């Protein structure tokens, strides 16, 4: 029972703050609600006993990516930027996107005749207390079965990082000269 209470609490917080995030006019308020959504999602991970995913979500998304978002929001004048984005057919495009997404979700629900998450095939149903510690499991599979994808991803990230540094450096040099 505790599990379902926790789940509905976190899910409710996530959905409500996601809606608030979209509807706020102030960009920083939106960012705050996005943080709330991410934290609530992390809470759902923890309720599912995926504690490593929970802390990775908090450290990477809330502690890392959101810093970047807030920095950009604080340093860029968004009302000016917003003015540039407005274009003539925006209502039409938005309606089309929403219609396509809605049709997709409806089609999935209609053909499956189930709500999302219902009727999933679950392997090895174990009581929550007896699950193996999943940070070890994650490390094992990352460094054995998925070693190549893991390395490719890290090289990709390194390339992106070096690229960002090079771009920042170049700009400074032209300013100096």
């Amino acid at each position: 029972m505790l599990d379902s209470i926790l789940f509905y609490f976190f899910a409710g917080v996530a959905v409500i703050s996601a809606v608030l995030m979209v509807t706020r006019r102030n960009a920083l308020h939106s960012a705050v609600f996005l943080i709330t959504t991410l934290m609530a999602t992390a809470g759902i991970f923890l309720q599912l006993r995926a504690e490593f995913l929970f802390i990775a979500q908090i450290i990477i998304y809330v502690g890392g990516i959101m810093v970047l978002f807030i920095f950009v929001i604080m340093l860029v004048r968004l009302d000016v930027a917003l003015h540039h984005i407005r274009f003539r057919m925006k209502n039409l495009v938005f309606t089309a996107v929403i219609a396509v997404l809605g049709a997709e979700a409806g089609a999935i629900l209609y053909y499956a005749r189930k709500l999302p998450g219902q009727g999933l095939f679950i392997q090895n149903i174990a009581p929550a207390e007896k699950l193996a510690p999943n940070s070890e499991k994650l490390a094992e599979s990352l460094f054995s079965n998925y070693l190549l994808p893991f390395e490719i991803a890290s090289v990709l990230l390194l390339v992106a990082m070096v690229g960002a540094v090079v771009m920042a450096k170049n700009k400074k040099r032209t300013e100096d000269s």
Partner: protein
Amino acid sequence: MTPSTLQSILHFLQTWWVELTCGVVIVAVVPLVAGYLVLMERKLMADMQARLGPMRVGPHGLLQPIADAVKLLIKEDIIPSESDKFIFWLAPVVSMTAALTSMGAIAFGPSFQVARDINIGILFVLGVSSLGFLGIILGGWASNSHYSIIGALRSTAQLVSYETAGGLAIISSLLLSGTLSVSGIVTAQQNQHVWFIFLAPVAFFIYLVASIAETNRAPFDLPEAESELVAGYMTEYSGFRWALYFLGEYANMIVVGSVATTLFLGGWLRPFPNVHWLNWLDFLPGLFMLLLGAYCTYRAGKQPVKVQTAFMWGVALCCFLVALIFAVPWFVAPIKFVIPGLNGAFWFLLKVTAYIYLFMWVRFTLPRYRFDQLMHLGWYILIPLAIVNVFAVGIAMLIAANSTWNHALVLALATIATTIVTLVCAIFLVRWHDRHTESASLAPDSYVG
């Protein structure tokens, strides 16, 4: 309310009462402890500057924190008219909540821990306590003031840079213990008969510097440099909101002290936990409090005013009471099981206090860094050094694992060798850095805005 709901609530309380009590104790006690840390800091500062410090409220100013708290509570609550009210209200709360929440996973003793044995314990503490920056940056933005926003930007830049170095520093301790769980790390230090500070001294030093920078304390207190930014991100805050920020900051100090204690200083273990002829050390907590009480009794007669004599007697009585609490389990068999817990908490808090004392000592000794110096220290010296150190610890562990001799001895020897290599690397890094940035270090502060 149906009986079944009531029953399930009762069942819930029966299962979780220890954790709930620990949580309530943390939330209730930490603000008080933070207040007394402020007093300790002021007394220390006074001592190092040949003054007396707060002396008026209570004997030797012992009631000063409570007076301060009352003063802050009844102060006018000023909200700037141009500020963003919602975020202005939210920011200090976030700052304090993050610090208090992260204490949930710290093991203050063998069994005093809110989130017992979660196997990501140390990551939880680091990740959640780093959310405090959100409070700082949101507060700085919401105040709608230049000083605030510059302070907030500096604080965030500093936090992001030094968190990398600090994170790399803790890896060596995690490598040596092979687990992320807080109590697992302490147990590993007991099993290996050594505190990890002796196996990874460079990592401890990097963590020390990084933790000073992360808590925004001198010599890295750029975000609230009084002479430049009034009070940084806290400029527009007053009264109890300001107190919340302050509370968050001091709670954060306790958190980083606890992390360093757990990772490098042996957590709740007493010195030499496996040496049996030193078992008398288990009586030390009680004896220590007894001596403190005796000293207070001795000093009570020398107080100038009658009220202060009475206060001093009160303090002595408190000390004797704590000593009694430490002593009783030795004589009453049914509650003998609490002895390890009490002693563990005593040693843990002693180490944390020593760490915080070091913080304060550094604060009153070293002058403040300039912002570009701070960034250079973080990115050019500490992070490369931390990476080299991770390699060094890994190599030492490999050597120890592949040798057929006494494992602990080989590990110690290999560690000494790799530490020397790391230090040589550090010297080269510093010299290289000095040679290449001689002109840059004279440039004006280009980060402030």
